[in-house]
Every structure is written in C-alpha cells, then in structure tokens.
C-alpha cells in the first residue's frame, strides 16, 4: 500500500511515481495516539477508490464515529460506495476475516487497510499469534493481488498507534517490522502549533531506501494540506496545479483527531465542530 498513501502525500506536488498500478510494499503507519492515522487511511481509501481498479477493504475494530464528509472526494458517493468496511471485534474475528477472505464475494479489493492494530494487540496475543496476524495480513493482500491478476496488485496499510519514545516497550513491534519493512511515521510538528495542527510524515520504504518527508497540516477550515517537507520550510503551500491528482489539498473532518487534551487537540476539536454541519 505504500503506494496509495504515497499518492495521497504526493498529491500536493507534481511527482507521482508508481503509476503502473504497482501497490508498493506493505506499509506500517506508525504514530502517536491521535496523530490523524484514521484520516490518512481514509484519504488513501478514497484515493484508491477513485483509481478504477477495484474496491477498498477498510478494517477497523469499531465503526468510525463520523465520516469526513466535507472532503470533496468524499462527496463523490461512488468513491465511498467502493469502500467496504468490516468491524471485527476481536483478534480472533480479525484472523477469521483474513483466513476466509477468499470466500468473500467479488469485487476483489485493490487496497486493504487496517486501522487501530494496537486495539487488537491490547488483547495480549502471544508473539506467535501476533506474527500469524501480520503474516496473514500479507497473505490476504497477496491473495487479492493474485486474484486481480493483470489488473494490478493489492496494497496493504496497517496503522499502529505507538509513542516513539516508548517504542522499545511496544508489544511485538520488532516482529511487526519484520513483516512490514516499509514504515511511515507521523510525528507532531512543534512549528505548526498555534495556527494549525501540523504533522510530519516520514516514509521509509526499506532499510536502504531514502526517507521522504511531508508536512501534513490541518487548516482551520477543516482542510488537510500536504506539502513536501523541504518545500514547506520556505513556502507553505506550493499551489501547483495537478489536475490528474484531483486532490491537491484534501479536506478532512479529522474525525480521529482530538478530544481535549493538548493544545493542538483544542484547535482541531473546534475545526471538527465547524465541519460537522456540512
């Protein structure tokens, strides 16, 4: 899936690699709690849904409280209709969902998203069970790719909440990284505080590949703005027209961002409130 997320992050600039339909390696999306992981996954889902290569399977433990309906792409109902949501309530149900994926009716997903892996890991599975979950996620995406055949491959992105400082204690993280060599980390960016919530997204496709970084900011109007990290230091919003991307700046309701707590939380809560009417 790395490719689907990269497309979302790359929407703000001209470079759009990976147009050949390749899904990229399976990706682990790491970030502190409330670092907009759900919003980014959702943006990736809508992006992939617009590509005309099949549907999207969005797996999460509980239904999203509100869909970011202010997103221009989300208002295109045909996109949302291509996203199938599944809510396995336990690790056992999640394993069952993956193990029986080949029994599910068509269409075959071209993107498999799992939000909130930490909620399943909170059930304290053994290392072997956690490894089996990771391996079965990869196997399910590989099966979907096999079924898509010449129509491309199925991407996989798994979001896991973890504090960078406490990463050594995060259960099974080393084991997960073995199955997910590509990782994208979301970190709050101190510079952004005050005006709007700002995150730094760092994508590494493997141990030897270079790191790519973006700045993701949530503007008061509820929009999500993505700019390449270096570019945003000098100029905040390079207004390049990229009509094929169709989503140069994505408007998201930031549903998973904030309850009150930190300064940035407060700002975003009010944004979400302003959005909720639309």
């Amino acid at each position, binding site marked *: 899936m790395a490719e689907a997320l990269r497309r979302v992050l790359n929407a703000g600039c001209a470079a759009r690699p990976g147009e050949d339909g390749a899904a990229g390696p399976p990706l682990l999306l790491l970030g502190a709690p409330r670092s907009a992981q759900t919003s980014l996954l959702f943006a990736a889902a809508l992006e992939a849904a617009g590509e005309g290569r099949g549907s999207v399977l969005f797996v999460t433990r509980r239904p999203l409280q509100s869909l970011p309906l202010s997103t221009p792409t989300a208002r295109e109902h045909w996109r949302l209709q291509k996203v199938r949501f599944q809510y396995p309530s336990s690790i*056992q149900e999640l394993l069952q969902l993956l*193990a029986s994926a*080949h029994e599910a009716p068509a269409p075959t997903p071209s993107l498999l998203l799992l939000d909130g892996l930490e909620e399943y890991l909170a059930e304290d599975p053994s*290392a*072997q069970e956690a490894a*089996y979950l990771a391996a*079965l996620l990869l196997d399910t995406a590989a099966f979907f790719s*096999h*079924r898509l055949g010449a129509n491309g491959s199925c991407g996989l992105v798994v979001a896991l909440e973890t504090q960078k400082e406490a990463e050594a204690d995060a259960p099974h993280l080393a084991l997960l990284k073995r*199955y997910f060599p590509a990782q994208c980390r979301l970190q709050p960016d101190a510079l952004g505080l005050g005006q709007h919530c700002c995150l730094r997204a760092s994508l590494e496709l493997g141990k030897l590949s270079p790191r790519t970084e973006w700045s993701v900011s949530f503007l008061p109007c509820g929009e999500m703005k993505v700019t390449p990290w270096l570019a945003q230091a000098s100029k905040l919003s390079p207004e390049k027209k990229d009509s094929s991307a169709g989503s140069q700046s994505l408007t998201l309701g930031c549903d998973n961002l904030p309850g009150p707590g930190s300064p940035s939380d407060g700002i975003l809560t009010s944004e979400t409130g302003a959005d909720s009417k639309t």
Partner: protein
Amino acid sequence: MAVALPEVVEELLSEMAAAVRDSARIPDELLLSLEFVFGSSAIQALDLVDRESVTLISSPSGRRVYQVLGSSGKTYTCLASCHYCSCPAFSFSVLRKSDSLLCKHLLAIYLSQLLRNCQQLHVSDKQLTDLLMEDTRRIKGAAGTWTSKTEA
C-alpha cells in the same frame, strides 16, 4: 514467496534450480553451501523433501497454503506468500532470537519447489479457511505451555 531472502541465499537457490534443470542433480559444493548457510536445518530439510513431506494445498479461489509433515509426525502450516510456519522453531529461532533465517519446514518448501516434488492437494474454499484457522486455535492452545517453557 514475496518476502525477500538475503541475496546470497537467493543466488544459492537459483544456482541449485539451474543445476536441477540441467543435470537433474544438485552438485555437492552447492549442498555444502546450503549446509553452511542453514546448518543442520539443511540436511533435515533435504530429508523432508526426500520423504515428499511438502504439500501445496489450493482451493478453487486460487488461495494456497503449504503443509509440511514434520519428522515427528506433526503437520505444520506454512503460508505461501510470506515466511510463516506454525512450528516452535520458527517462533523461537527465527522470530524471537533471529538466529535462523528459516525453519527447516520453510527451507523444505523452497527445496521442494526447485526439486519439483511438491505434492498437490485440492480442497474447498471452506476447508482452506478451516485450515488457516486451525492454526490459530493451535497457537492459542500452545501459548500457555510455550510461555512457561521458555521462561523456566
């Protein structure tokens, strides 16, 4: 299998595959290299292949999974798309201690592919699901004893 092996292993396996294609046998020096990389697992894996212990199970959906009949008579499930085996050595030596690349069952799968003596079995889609889930029940059942054994 999509999960990458170290280049040196990839190279060794492709050399072995080429040797099998050309002369239907694997030269001793390649077998020695295999043993050098995988230690005693190499001989054990070759033994499993000799006994035709590797079965590729597929369902009409096109999904596939491997089963390897271990030397103890136990059957282990291995995924076809990435490195995972339900045997204790995989959990311990590969995942936990990272001192082996593969367990002997996964190595046997690679070897049976290049020696083309993998057994084939077709099952229904439902049976394949049960097979994949059977594994999670076994993990659950084994988890208790495994923890106490390793912490002792």
